[in-house]
């Protein structure tokens, strides 16, 4: 059962881990169908599940928006009741933030980050699955409130003491639901942070990472530190609502600003959690279609990091109208204007990347350019919020609604749509139809500006937010009507997108490198095999895949490498790639000491975490994937065989999905004060975690009882959880 790799590399032994406690039979192999999805730990499948689930929530949240727009299309409309309207705007905001944009970013990050850094999976595959299932459970839990007495109705920001004193269970669903979603985000954040920090391919130094990976990393750090703050705020609300605590009871002497401080200390980093991954997407797409490297890569990365840091120092600009005093408001006003600087730097860098590029005006680029334009408008109206006197006028008006839809829809969603078109060929192996894609863009672009542009005017005319109807003498009728019409253009665009996905289901396969991409994810087949990389690539350059395909002429224009050049260059590259094995003085060379041996020519060796390494050696160019690699993840029996290398992937597991359900059980038990159910849920949770941690990450085919000597060695690079 054990293999011993040959000296001089240190020996490595695979002994089977102790036989786990099993209530359910461990799924083995990549089973197809529903069970395959439920038990999967493959980051790509999990990424797709995130994307699919979030898209469904996007449709629901969009439907809620349409209902509200119908209600507001004419004055004194009675299409919706005030109570329904409250539920709809609360759920629309909560859905779009927590159930759409965050999981869409999480899904893209899950799918792409390991591919972009040359890893076979994330650091903790089961934790990854757990994050998805908890997200799904949290979303379903929150939406179950519609059928159990009414959805949350106190706004997505849940201002206390309003949220602590509202009758009914509506806001209980909100606070418990967000708490569950926070657990999902936190586990995802830990996972992706460790993945990026620890699982980069040889040579993939931090400053060779694609900008999408960078921005995802920054966003995960923001999540890591922001989530506990909202968790505490929600716990305080829970204790107030359920156990009579006084945290937000003004009569007991509490400070009503406590909630606002805690919420916005989470909420403003959250804004950057929502926008940074989309910025990363755009930073991938614009260079690809301008056929130029990203202008000012380091500055792009550093401005992203700067946004991440400064995002913690601006939260009180959400509270200018609450009377913080002149010193605090001045300080936060200044920091708010400051944070526009790194954002502006990014915009100029995108424009400079496009400047004199050989532009291919595809759908992804259209959405990316739309992102830059719309986000600039949203950013500028954001700067006006930083001016305290102006903000005092704008607070709680439609001007604010216009602003954050320009940054979150015109920004994040445009960026994510761009990403969907860009990576669709990678997800499915098929292109989305370009004509329909452009129609989608045109409808969305027109509809978006029709819907949210007039809200600037309405806001300046004094129309407050969160009102379910308005009298007609205020002069708000016309622009509200235009806005409602525009929202249907957006809906039409979404329908075109759905039609496009269905229509191209059976279209011919496109190549592996659909857009002539620059980064590692395009160097492997589309859709990627479970193990991603047959050979873990060795990276010698930023935009490594581009570097392998192209060289430069005297004027810096890309020239395709000819086969002759390629073979010559491959030799040169191999020397380079071999040199990567030595620390390159980059300050963060990822080469793990002692892991890479002295045999620099065998770059392919680096694949061989748990396999017979020597069989896996290729020319180090990464071109020979699929050759001689048997894809056989679970068959430890074959380890001893010398002739073919094996790539061991972590085994599927039911425990993440099973465990995640416990959170909903606990929450229902607590909301309805059926303590026995809550306790059962706690036992369920604990049992799930125990079963999970006693289960080895990779299931042996036949567990052999030699526990005392088990080394519990994980075959896939670092994949344990």
């Amino acid at each position, binding site marked *: 059962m054990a293999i011993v790799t040959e000296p001089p*590399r*240190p*020996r*490595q*032994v695979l*002994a089977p881990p102790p036989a786990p406690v099993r209530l359910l039979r461990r799924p083995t192999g990549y089973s197809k169908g529903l069970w395959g999805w439920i038990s999967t730990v493959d980051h790509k499948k999990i990424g797709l599940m995130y994307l699919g689930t979030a898209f469904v929530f996007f449709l629901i949240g969009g439907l809620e928006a349409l209902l509200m727009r119908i209600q507001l299309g004419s004055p004194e409309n009675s299409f919706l009741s005030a109570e329904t309207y409250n539920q709809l705007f609360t759920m629309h905001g909560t859905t779009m933030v927590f159930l759409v944009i965050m999981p869409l970013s999480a899904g893209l990050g899950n799918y792409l980050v390991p591919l972009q850094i040359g890893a076979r999976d994330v*650091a*903790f595959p089961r934790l990854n699955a757990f994050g998805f299932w908890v997200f799904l459970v949290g979303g379903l839990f929150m939406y179950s409130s519609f059928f159990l007495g009414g959805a949350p109705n106190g706004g997505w920001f849940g201002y206390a003491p309003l949220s602590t004193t509202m009758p009914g269970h509506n806001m209980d669903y909100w606070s418990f639901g967000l708490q569950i979603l926070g657990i999902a985000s*936190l586990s995802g*954040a*830990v*996972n992706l*942070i*460790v993945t990026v*920090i*620890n*699982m980069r391919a040889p040579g*993939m130094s931090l400053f060779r990472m694609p900008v999408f990976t960078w921005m995802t990393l920054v966003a995960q750090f923001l999540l*890591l*530190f922001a989530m*506990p*703050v909202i968790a*505490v705020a929600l*716990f*305080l609300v829970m*204790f*107030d609502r359920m156990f*009579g*605590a*006084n*945290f937000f009871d003004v009569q*007991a*002497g*509490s*400070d009503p600003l406590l909630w606002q401080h*805690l919420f916005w200390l989470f909420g403003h980093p959250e804004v950057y959690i929502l926008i940074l991954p989309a910025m990363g997407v755009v930073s991938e797409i614009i260079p690809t279609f301008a056929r130029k490297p990203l202008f000012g890569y380091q500055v792009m990365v550093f401005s992203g990091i700067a946004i991440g840091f400064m995002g913690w120092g601006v939260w009180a600009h959400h509270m200018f109208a609450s009377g913080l005093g002149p010193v605090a408001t001045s300080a936060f006003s200044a920091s708010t204007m400051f944070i526009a600087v790194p954002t502006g730097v990014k915009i100029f860098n995108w424009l400079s990347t496009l400047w004199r590029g050989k532009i291919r005006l595809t759908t992804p680029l259209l959405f990316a350019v739309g992102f830059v334009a719309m986000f600039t408008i949203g950013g500028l109206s954001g700067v006006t919020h930083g001016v305290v006197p102006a903000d005092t006028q704008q607070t709680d008006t439609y001007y604010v609604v216009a602003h954050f839809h320009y940054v979150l829809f015109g920004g994040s969603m445009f960026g994510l749509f761009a990403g969907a078109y860009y990576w669709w060929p990678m997800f499915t192996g098929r292109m989305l139809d370009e004509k329909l894609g452009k129609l989608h863009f045109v409808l969305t672009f027109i509809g978006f500006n029709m819907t949210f542009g007039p809200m600037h005017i309405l806001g300046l005319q004094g129309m407050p937010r969160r009102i379910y109807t308005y009298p007609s003498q205020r002069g708000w009728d016309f622009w509200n009507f235009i806005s409602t019409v525009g929202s249907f253009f957006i809906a039409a665009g979404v329908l075109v997108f759905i039609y496009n996905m269905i229509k191209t289901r059976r279209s011919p396969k496109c190549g592996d490198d659909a857009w002539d991409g620059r980064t590692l994810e395009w160097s492997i087949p589309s859709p990627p095999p479970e193990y991603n990389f047959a050979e873990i690539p060795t990276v010698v350059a930023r935009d490594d895949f581009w570097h392998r395909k192209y060289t430069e002429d005297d004027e810096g224009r890309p020239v395709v490498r000819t086969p002759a050049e390629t073979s010559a260059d491959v030799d040169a590259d191999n020397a380079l790639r071999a040199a990567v094995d030595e620390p390159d003085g980059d300050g963060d060379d*990822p*080469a*793990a000491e*002692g*892991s890479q041996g002295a045999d620099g020519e065998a770059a392919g060796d680096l694949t061989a*975490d*748990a396999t017979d390494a020597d069989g896996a050696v290729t020319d180090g160019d990464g071109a020979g994937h699929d050759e001689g690699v048997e894809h056989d993840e679970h068959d430890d029996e074959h380890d001893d065989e010398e002739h073919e290398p094996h790539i061991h992937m972590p085994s599927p597991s039911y425990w993440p999905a099973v465990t995640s359900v416990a959170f909903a059980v606990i929450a229902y038990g607590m909301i309805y004060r059926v303590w026995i159910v809550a306790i059962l849920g706690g036992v369920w949770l*604990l049992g799930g975690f*125990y079963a999970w941690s006693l289960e080895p990450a990779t299931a042996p085919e036949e567990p052999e009882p*030699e*526990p*005392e*000597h*088990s*080394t*519990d*060695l*994980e*075959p*896939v*690079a*670092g994949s*344990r*959880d």
Partner: protein
Amino acid sequence: MTVTTTSEGTHTEEAPAGHPPTSTGLSNEKVAMWAFLGSECLLFGALISTYLLYRGRSAPNTITPEDVYDIPYTSVSSFVLLMSSLTMVLALAAIQRGDHRRVRIWLLTTGLLGASFVAGQMYEFTVFYREGLKISSNLFGSSFFVLTGFHGAHVTLGVLMLLSLWSLSLRGKLPASRSETVELVGLYWHFVDIVWIVIFTVVYLIP
């Protein structure tokens, strides 16, 4: 691959655990634990800030900290918790030496010291409750019970992990090659202790 093992499962002392190479050389679990602890800092930071915000702001003529606190009692239980950090270090040192008998002794001791702290806290809560301090009494009651309760829940979780390790070790399933598991639980345990030093100072000692 820093691990050198043979099929017999013996290990070299310098090899911390069976880990494939990572970009930093640190194991994924350790990086993850540090990230998680960073997140926990913000959790307790928010809770402690809430407590500090509401210090001395309770409605007049309601129960005050001076009415209920028994500083000598809490000092003793704090000392018990701090000593458990010492035994945790001894447990880690023992497993790194491969001294499994002492591993079990120190893991169990650490767990029991932690459990004594939790038991002491439960007793303290009961006494306070009898003396009239409830979560609903005033701002002090709310912020006291929630802050110290969250810490107690963290200690309880740590005790569970320690006892699980102890039971794994009893069944021979905690070989020296997995000493990093002990180290990670230790990181968590020390974090919880350090947080208690802050909480004890802020909640009990600052007048």
